[in-house]
């Protein structure tokens, strides 16, 4: 199986498979293989040994158990199959399940067949986690943002709209990327924010939705309502609320009233979203991919088309977008797992090696040069910046381009 990923979900106690999702060209695993994969893990835990991962040259398997009730196993022969990615993927998948069907049903497995049916509702969200297309938040555990030039106007519009709907939690999204959100919205955990954005981005386009959700950390057992309204195609405003107001009420009374005055701004957002920031910010022509992370706010800006349209045509020939994504994701993984420790406040013991703990001095910047690209990463107190360059960029220029870019972006963007 070359280049594929399989995600298995089983009931920990009985070993009954709950679902299986896959990506790429992998074949469905046979029942006996699924049984063995679960069996070795179960055998280990009976002996007080927690099996975490195993790997062959190209394939990697990772096990995680959640709440002693759900076992997730991922098996991947993709290049980005790192401990870091697997750890975050499995965490996200489980929380996606909580988000959609709530923790109670997952912890107290009474009717497996019913649970299986319920879990079908998560497939879309899980598949979009596996696909990892236009977003990188699933890997960075940061909220993918779009820096709109009209952020102030939109923020104001959102605040009054949310207040009028008698909620505190509201957010404006363009293609699953957050443009502006209310202060309370930002207080949700990063995991919830990432999943909510993914959920909105992964659902089929609809003019409005009323979707019951559980917040994996804030409210895992009591559902809330997620209301979304399409303002222009691709741009949705989301509300998190209790039993009131009704969808109908908001749709008819509030949406039109608060959002029609800022229609132009919304359309600008749509134009900006591919690049995630304004065309007026000119980046160095050798940059083909950019990821800027605000470490304090857990937000990131991610783009694979950092240039205005005319030059991107030419850039596309240098490195295909698919390849750019994979390179940037892997460079991020390398840098974060080896050099720039993520701020983890997890109490649980490390499930994979933490290489950076062995350094006596602090890593600040790093780069690689490969056959078809170069990458540069740097970390400051507040930001992390990862850039992909064309292969013909001189290595000695990478650093100055990177520091200049960071300076420019932090100056120009409210980030």
């Amino acid at each position, binding site marked *: 199986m070359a280049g594929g990923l399989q995600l298995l979900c089983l009931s920990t106690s009985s070993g009954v498979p709950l679902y299986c999702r896959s990506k790429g060209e992998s074949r469905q695993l046979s029942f006996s293989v699924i049984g063995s994969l679960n069996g070795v893990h179960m055998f280990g835990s009976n002996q*007080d040994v927690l099996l975490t991962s195993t*790997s062959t040259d190209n394939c990697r398997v990772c096990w995680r158990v959640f709440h002693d009730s759900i076992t997730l196993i991922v098996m991947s022969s993709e290049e980005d199959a790192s401990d870091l990615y697997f750890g975050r993927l499995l965490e996200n998948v489980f929380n996606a399940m909580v988000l959609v069907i709530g923790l109670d049903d997952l912890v107290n497995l009474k009717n497996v067949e019913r649970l299986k049916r319920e879990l079908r509702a998560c497939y879309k969200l899980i598949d979009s986690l596996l696909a990892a297309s236009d977003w990188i938040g699933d890997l960075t555990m940061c909220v993918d943002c779009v820096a709109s030039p009209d952020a102030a106007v939109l923020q104001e519009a959102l605040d009054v709209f949310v207040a009028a709907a008698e909620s505190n939690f509201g957010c404006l999204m363009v293609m699953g990327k957050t443009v502006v959100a209310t202060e309370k919205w930002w207080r949700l955990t990063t995991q919830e924010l990432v999943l909510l954005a993914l959920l909105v981005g992964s659902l089929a386009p609809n003019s409005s939705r009323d979707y019951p959700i559980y917040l994996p950390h804030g409210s895992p057992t009591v559902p809330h309502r997620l209301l979304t309204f399409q303002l222009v195609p691709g741009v949705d405003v989301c509300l998190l609320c209790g039993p009131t107001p009704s969808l109908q009420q908001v749709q008819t009374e509030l949406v039109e009233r608060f959002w029609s005055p800022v229609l132009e701004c919304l359309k600008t957002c749509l134009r900006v979203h591919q690049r995630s920031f304004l065309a007026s910010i000119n980046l160095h022509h050798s940059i083909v991919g950019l990821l800027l992370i605000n470490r304090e706010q857990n937000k990131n800006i991610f783009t694979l088309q950092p240039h205005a349209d005319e030059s991107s045509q030419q850039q596309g020939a240098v490195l295909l977008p698919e390849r750019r994504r*994979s390179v940037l994701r892997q460079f991020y993984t*390398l840098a974060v797992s080896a*050099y720039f420790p993520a701020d983890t406040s997890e109490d649980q*013991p490390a499930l994979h090696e933490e290489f950076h703990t062995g350094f006596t001095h602090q890593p600040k910047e790093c780069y*690689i040069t490969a056959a078809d690209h170069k990458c540069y990463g740097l970390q400051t107190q507040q930001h992390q910046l990862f850039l992909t360059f064309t292969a013909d960029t001189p*290595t000695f220029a990478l*650093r100055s381009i990177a520091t200049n870019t960071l300076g420019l972006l932090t100056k120009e963007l409210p980030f």
Partner: protein
Amino acid sequence: MVKDFVRREVLTQDEAVSSSFLMRSEDAGVETPGTLEDSERETVTTSSGAHPEPGSCSSGDLEPEWLDDVQKNGELFYLELSEDEEDALIQANALPVSYTNHVRFSDKEAEIITDHKSKKPCIHDHKLKKLANVLKKKGLVHGHSCKKVNEQRDNQPPGPVSILKHHPNSKTRVPVQLSYKDVLVYINPNKVNNESLTEGVKLLEACVGIIHQPASKIPADKKHFNTFTDAKTTAGEKLIVQSLVHGSAAMKCGQVFIGDVLIAVNDVEVTTENIERVLSCTPGPIQQEILYHYPMADASKKLKNIRGIFLTLCDMLENITGEQVISTSLLMNGKLVNVGYWKEGYNLLLIGLPAERVALPQLKNMIKNLVRTLQYMYNSLDSAFCKLENVPRLNHFFNLYFQRTIQPAKLNCSSSSQFDSSSTALFLDGLPGVRWLTLPQDIKMDIDTTLSDLESADFGELSEDFYDMQRLYMILGSCLFFKGYLIGNHLPKDDLLDIALYCQHYCLLPLAAEKRIGQLVIWREVFPYQYISSEEPIIEGYQEPKGKYFLLIVGLRHFMLCVVLEAGGCACKAIGNPGPDSIYVDQVKTILLKLEGLEAGIQERLTNPSTPYLSCADRFIPPRDMFESLSSSPIISKLQTTSKSTQSPTSRRTLFGDSNLRMRKSNPPRSNSTSDYADERFGDSGSFNVDFDSYSTSNKIKKHLRSEIPGSGGSENKKKQRFPNPFYLGSMKKSLPEAESEEIYNIKKLTSGSENTLFHYISLETLQGIFITPTHTEVAHLNGSIHSQLIKNFHRCCLSIRSVFQQTLDKRAKCSDIIHNSAQTLRKSSSGLGPVKEHGILFQCSPENWTDRKKPPPSMSYWVVGRLFVDLHPQEFYVCFHDSVTEVAVELAFRLSFGLIT
């Protein structure tokens, strides 16, 4: 199979999670292991006292002193330290060491077991002794102070001798010989017929064939055995063999005698009280799927219990992916453990190591090297693990192996413990190369001619004419080490690496580096990698002779010469297991004596700095008290880019003379000097240059370079001292004739810019299987607290850089395998990060214990850059330099390899 384990001693195995075992993945074809033969084990002997003049060895009349140590299988491991080293050891032993508190050796064996278990032997002991202890613990070393014991040992398995050995006062007690022995007895509980059991016959009798009557029935004996009864064990009585059942397993093995005491079965201590229970739990022959298992620590037993996981994963993943499993990670007792796999035929070798010690990418390399070492010594894993007589040897082997990987400092195995941290050792040991010392051309030539003389084997006793008979061995080639550095090599790369791995494993190189060896003679049959790995002929139409290969290592003082010999081919066929031939040993010794004439020259090269010059990292950080106590420190510094720049202490100027106190305002070209974001945030990172005075400008450069500054000891007072940096030329160049000094300086400096910003480097040439890196002396010269941290950090970082490179190299190897499938090759090469050529990391450091809260600590930034040259024979280059100059790694590597290696 039951291992009747009459315990000899308990190894002080650490609680560290480490384990190795080898098992059959299929039950088919398990050979029935034979009885353990004692006395056939690798023997290391240290002896002292009247060792003969090395020169006299060549006279054939005298029997060589190592002759008695040659084992049945022809192998020899003979080590004799030089007299002064011995004295040091004896002195270390004679210190009032409170061993008596640790190991109370008495005639109560149980006490030894319990006591010894919890104590680590003599931690504060002399360094080499630790190495020796490890060997001793395995019962492989006879001590120099226990001759009597040695003699008795001839017909006894090594017993508590090792415990006695630590005991300076123990000589008087030597006669109290307790012989503990491991006896392997084959039993099959399934075969014991039920009838006899129902009749009340005990399992001990039915299964094993040992008859023991409860002591109460024979009160006369009880008194006699009191001496063996430990006061603590009141629960049950000792199991004394009172008679043997005729034809039983115990009798067949021929090693269980009447009067012996059964102490443990399969590592479980037994008494009359629990013996039946223990035996009834003995599993049947199914246990045989484990061919070898080490050590017997708790963590390791746990791994053994879950071996089903590894076997299942190995089979299953191979079926699904068609690839071998490399590793499994698991959490055990709150610790992450990495288990590495190696499959050879039906056998599976598993090594478990704590993840904090060995990360996954290194584990893969380590297993590869381990297997290669075992193959070099035993031909294959199968022949290493499936012969029962190898068990004690393997125990010794893995004891060393785990000590080396888990506690290198304790074993003092890293080449120089003072400078080499565990990551240093981990990185350097993992490189596919041997540490090479560049030498002046004339010395190198002398070495090469001398080695060629030996290899030609056409003179003296080695020539066929001398005895008028076919010679015994062909000399295939040799390699020469001095103080652990390779200084001459006439072997193909693979042979060299084989030898290097063997020497690394037995810690021979650091031994020669730190101790003067009186005499070292090692002889064994080996199975070189290039012959066992290549099935096709190396050259078309030519077939390697199907001969036997032998490794002869002879060491004298700091020299060590390794010679690969071939029997068969154009030399005699080797029959059986021939031991070392004294003619060859003497010839090698003669060569070594000849080479000793070059020692002074080589030593000079070692003590003098070589190209390229290095800088001390501490030099780039202003000392803590710089601002306050400039007058007490002869260091003049200059902050370049900030307004904090200090005032020049003019008072000192007159004292030292103008030429010494030069305020230099160098402005290194920096790519980011204009709007350096990092600099804004972190202050003057990397823009801090400190200039130092030198003592005398009238001396010649060379003399200056050689001058060593004494007392560069503690890191605390060092800050106030002038920084001992004999390589630094910065301030002197002006005072010398301009042209001359510039020239010398530029040749010997690797980095660009006016300052020498090079801190450390490693250059690996896989074509020749060597790497070069600054010598220990050079690193010692740059002794500074920041600098030593930097060296550690550098190696740690190299580990991570190299693992990125290895993905490239692995992929490349795979691509060449499937070159015909071009579509797949394309796919592979464009996935992942792709072939990575260069990888660099910028580090920032500040002095430790910065107390001044008002000012942020001064900091210094430096790069660690790795560069991979993917060629037919890949080269790797790792360099560490200060951040002030933008360096192009390719250029540095180019300059280094053309300046040094050729």
